[in-house]
């Protein structure tokens, strides 16, 4: 019902920003679902929020810094144990710059 809010190209662009590959059928489904949800969001426009500070989190905790002390970190072999592709002591990835 609100499928006009986002175009097919909009959805493809957002998917690219999110590094998420979706096929043509998913693009159509997402376009419909996202447009419906975005339409619901419009209800917030009714509220006057002029000058209201945003809430990022709800407690009074502010920037929490610990002392800069050496501490043991996870050992390399345990860190690498979950990596799908490992080369010696490195994680292997596909080329970033071609």
């Amino acid at each position, binding site marked *: 019902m609100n499928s006009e809010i986002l175009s097919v190209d909009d*959805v493809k662009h*957002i*998917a690219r*920003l*999110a*590094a*998420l*590959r*979706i096929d043509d059928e*998913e693009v159509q489904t*997402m376009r419909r*679902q*996202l447009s*419906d*949800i*975005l339409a*619901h*969001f419009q*209800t*917030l*426009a009714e*509220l006057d*929020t002029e000058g*209201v*500070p*945003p*809430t*990022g*989190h*709800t*407690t009074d*905790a502010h920037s*929490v810094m*610990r002392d800069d002390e050496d501490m043991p970190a*996870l050992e390399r072999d*345990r*860190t690498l*144990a*979950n*990596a*799908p*592709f490992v080369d010696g002591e490195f*994680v292997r*990835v*596909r*080329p*970033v710059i*071609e």
Partner: protein
Amino acid sequence: MSVASETQTSARDLRAKYLNGETTAREVALAHLQRIKEVEPRTHAFLTVLDEEDVVTQAQAADQRLENGTASALTGVPFLIKDNISTEGVRTTAASRILDGYVPPFDATVVSRLKEAGAIILGKGNLDEFAMGSSNENSAFTPVVNPWGENRVPGGSSGGAAAAVAAGEAVIALGSDTGGSIRQPASLCGVVGFKPTYGTVSRFGLIAFGSSLDQIGPIARTVADCADTVNTIAGLDPLDSTSLDHKLDFAEYLNRDIDGMRIGVPREYIVDGIEPGVRAAFEKCLTVLEGLGAIVEETSLPLTDHALAVYYIIAPSEASANLSRFDGVKYGMSVDGEPNARESIEATRGSGFGPDAKPRILIGTYALSAGYYDAYYKKAQQVRTLIRREFHDAFQKFDVIATPTSPTVAFELGEKTQDPFQMYLSDVCTIPVNIAGLPGISVPCGLSEELPVGLQILAPQLGDRTALQVAHAYEQSANWNLTPPEPCTD
């Protein structure tokens, strides 16, 4: 003792039996493994059950502590841990294919604290993928079935946790609650679910969904067991910068009466779609609270209607950032054979994330993107401030707020999967609590059409003890003690 009497028990009763020698942690642990074997083919509450050898080792250590006087409240108590909470050496999936094969090299802080207390960990609980969902149907593995009805959802996202406790597969479960994911499934499965004040329990090792909303908490059979669990897992953690340096005794007010307690009932929570049976059960429990001396008054929280929109901007925005770490490089599944890093990340994420995670990632990405940030994310955060103020004002007049936990009882599997918005409405009574960072507890308040209904009690930030006090007073007076009608075995 029969398996049933050892598995349908509270932790406090269990502890009494341990201390008077009526049973041992080993016996109880084995009874739970037996129960799991019997009912899992139907409930699918567990994604991983630990080996008997491992469970028995934990139980024997607990028995030693019970014998030598070093036991704590949770020593020898069988737990299930929701599978978005990291467990060292035990696979942790968040019910997503993208974490296929992932075995955490560390424990979440809550898991370390349970282990130190001598609790027995039985296994990992099924959930909606990355805790995104209200029915557990978004699990990449298999949906959970509510022990109260074979075609009914258990709620979500901690559906495995709630179903396991209801079915006698665990005495207590740890869940996580971002928009109701502890309280709503507890309501739908007839057990107690407690979300403490944001920051009271460390989130270190919880696979993050919405970082400003997420909170770990217990699902149990009694309010007292919830309080004891949070006493064990709460407290400052240097590994979570949002954890609060505030150690309450959560059980402190449990035995106080509620005579003169002021309870507000916001009319906006009696939503249009509320089922008549839920409404009737809720109204009946207000009468019970009045009978205990509480002063129950109707009130209004007009911004409640906007909470859903605020949540469905903030939660996916934070999720889109949190889920960007899943790239198939460091852990989890990885699609090979793509020409470059960018393509391989896109392919991995495209095939690794499920059909409900994807729209949330996209909505969040859109809401945070240049040109839309002010209209969506910033606007939602401003309305979040207004909602907090509204609660703050309400708590000047009332000690606690009482609402139904969910507008419906457990719905049928597949009933709402085609319409995400209908699914979101299932959380309409629980979401405002996370937006404002409040404590909230759901406690069983009867049956409607032979399915459990939940009463939700909300308190101001760090007013957790008062929420537990009211829930406990109601629980003791109403004494529902709901047990599913043994539907779980074939």
